[in-house]
């Protein structure tokens, strides 16, 4: 019978030698690890008895296509002409549903419009700004001023949903920062509408054969660049020449999508050019500061090192010492 007590006695003796902090730690560590392994085994059991069904959105969602913009890279600058064309696409197409709440008319100076042009763009804008009648105090509207932000096409979310099959067109001010892929995503989405029947992914699988339930519901539109493949927005850019560019660029659907993506890259980060320019100066300054600082440090430490060299793993003398010590201690490797 003695062995029944021998085991707990041995465990107790082990704990006593280990000390109470380490004893409790051992128990806590064992408990957490055990519960984690219970979770692991529980998950594995569920996974193998009831494997998760693949989702159409996982198999058929596409990453954005590449879009080269002149603002890319550390020295990138905005192509103002392209952004102005993009602004034209926004004004004539997107702005029917999408607001641009964080951008004001005066900001357009940043893409090359002058004060007179901005004033005209503001006062001609199709939506007026909420105001009050100066005589009666009743709610009314007035023409936009350069200091105003772009007025939203709908008065509120309810109005926006009512006009769009209960879908809410997102504000576009920050859209290229708020989506994975940025401007490339906007460009891919705008040009990515496809016919769902017969649609195949890169592997050649046909969507409706693999997932017969994934048929696009009414009022939605199939677009493999959209996260769940079905987007409420109808294709906004459909025909070549939908807008007429003044600079003679041919307004193909692809071109319009590129231009409006460039415009939205600007609305999301109008700071980009000053950021890139300031960055060059700061990087050059810090590079020189590091090099000069390093040389000063080397010179200062020269004498100190002369007496005692700093230790280092790569120091051959130290390595030899370590090898000798390891040899004595009987450690291999």
């Amino acid at each position: 019978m003695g062995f029944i007590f021998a085991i707990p006695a041995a465990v107790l003796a082990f704990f006593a030698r280990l000390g109470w902090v380490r004893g409790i730690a051992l128990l806590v560590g064992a408990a957490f690890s055990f519960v984690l392994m219970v979770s692991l085994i529980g998950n594995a059991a569920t996974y193998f008895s009831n494997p998760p069904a693949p989702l159409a959105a996982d198999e058929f969602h596409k990453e954005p296509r590449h879009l080269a913009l002149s603002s890319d890279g550390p020295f990138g600058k905005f192509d103002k002409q392209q952004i102005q064309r993009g602004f034209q696409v926004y004004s004539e197409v997107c702005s029917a549903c999408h607001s641009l709440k964080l951008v004001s008319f005066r900001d357009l100076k940043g893409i090359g419009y002058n004060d007179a042009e901005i004033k005209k763009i503001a006062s001609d804008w199709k939506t007026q700004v909420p105001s009050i009648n100066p005589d009666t105090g009743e709610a009314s509207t007035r023409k936009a001023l350069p200091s105003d932000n772009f007025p939203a096409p709908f008065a509120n979310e309810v109005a926006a949903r009512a006009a769009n099959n209960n879908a809410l067109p997102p504000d576009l001010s920050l859209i290229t920062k708020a989506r994975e892929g940025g401007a490339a995503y906007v460009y891919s989405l705008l040009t990515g509408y496809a016919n769902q029947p017969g649609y195949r992914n890169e592997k050649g699988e046909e969507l409706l054969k693999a997932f017969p339930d994934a048929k696009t519901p009414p009022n939605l539109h199939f677009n493999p660049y959209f996260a769940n493949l079905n987007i409420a927005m109808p294709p906004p850019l459909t025909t070549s020449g939908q807008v007429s560019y003044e600079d003679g660029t041919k307004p193909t659907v692809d071109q319009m999508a590129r231009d409006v993506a460039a415009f939205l890259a600007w609305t999301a980060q109008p700071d980009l050019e000053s950021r890139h320019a300031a960055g060059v100066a700061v990087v050059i300054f810090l590079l020189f500061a590091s090099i000069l600082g390093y040389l000063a440090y080397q010179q200062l430490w020269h004498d100190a090192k002369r007496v005692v060299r700093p230790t280092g793993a790569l120091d051959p003398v130290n390595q030899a010492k370590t090898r000798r010590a390891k040899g004595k201690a009987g450690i291999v490797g």
Partner: protein
Amino acid sequence: MSFAWAKPYEPKHPVMRWLDERLPLPRVVYGAIGGGYPVPRNLNYWWNFGVLAGIFLTIQIVTGIVLAMHFTASTDGAFNSVNQLIMRDVSAGWLLRYAHMNGASFFFLVTYIHIFRGLYYGSYKAPRELVWMLGLVIYLLMMATGFMGYVLPWGQMSYWGAQVITGFFSAFPLVGEPIRVWLLGGYAPDQAALTRFFSLHYLLPFVIAGVVILHIWALHIPGSSNPTGVDVKEERDTLPFHPFYTAKDGWFAAAVLLFYAIVTYYAPDYLGHPDNYIPANPLATPAHIVPEWYFWPFYAILRSFTVDFILEAKLWGVLAMFSSILLLFFLPWLDRSPVRSGSYRPVFKRFFWLLVADVVILGYIGGAPINAWRVAVGQIAAAYYFLHFLVILPLVARFETPLPLPTSISESVLHGEESEAAPAGKTQKRRGSAAAAR
């Protein structure tokens, strides 16, 4: 302060003498980070990260104070005050904001390196236990500050992050939910939560600065540790902090700030999440709620508990996540090896690098969307995290044979040049002859 040969402050200018006799502030600074603080001469570059953490704390406080001048702490105004007023209208507001956003990331990055340096070189061991524990207090305060700062722009991740993190408290039975409601000032994050998070986000950095002073004070009693882990014995083991370590810290700080500048100016949103540029919407849950990268390892531990076992899975996760940090307070008593430095501990060293890999894996798992194999890997990695600190470290300390230690710092770095060895001060003017002797 710490060693007999520490040079006392001798004011050179009459004004400084006048000041020193009335308020010895210059004396304190001289003893803390000037020529009056003797530092082991063999410190490597891993010892630069404490100063760097101080630099980034300063950057955060300065940029933060100016940002607060333009920020509106209201659920209607916060998003626009950040994304229109600060980013577009305030002069160089974009720079302040990006510097603050990425400053937080770099603050955590250098702090993590600083913590892992402490883990490898046994900086938590006697007589520096309080230095280590005060450092952990700073780290906890940083986590609270970082979390509340991320809530302030009131984007989607701000809102849902606040929802998830305050939800931890509701895991505790009975008292949990009332505590959560009390902390938030409501049933969900709203105006009350935003205002108090702003208030605390402004307060805590100054509390951090206060604890940093205690951290440095406690450090200066035994003095800095060093890569051999051997105690300082004589004057030739040390160099005065200024000018030797101010010069080393100075150039290295410039080099790290260079990386910080590259990220801030050329990839300012790289470390952030796109969803935080969508205004907070309590009715639309983001597909993947993730915290900032510096919380990913802990988020992975939280999410690894998936099965109810005696306690609810969520409660296990929350307990484990809090424990994963709190256990570090007990480290001086868990690892009883008399040898401080991992360089002389062959078994410990291997487990240390395993821990580094483990935390990196946990970080990846915590940041990535959930799927079956990631959860499984996360569970194994989380188990190793606890086993490492709570089981392996105490046992390694018990059974490991450490390598022989050098008898002194000087001996560890001398290569038969003992005859040349002399107190550093005496060699200052011998540069010419020293160069000739090579």
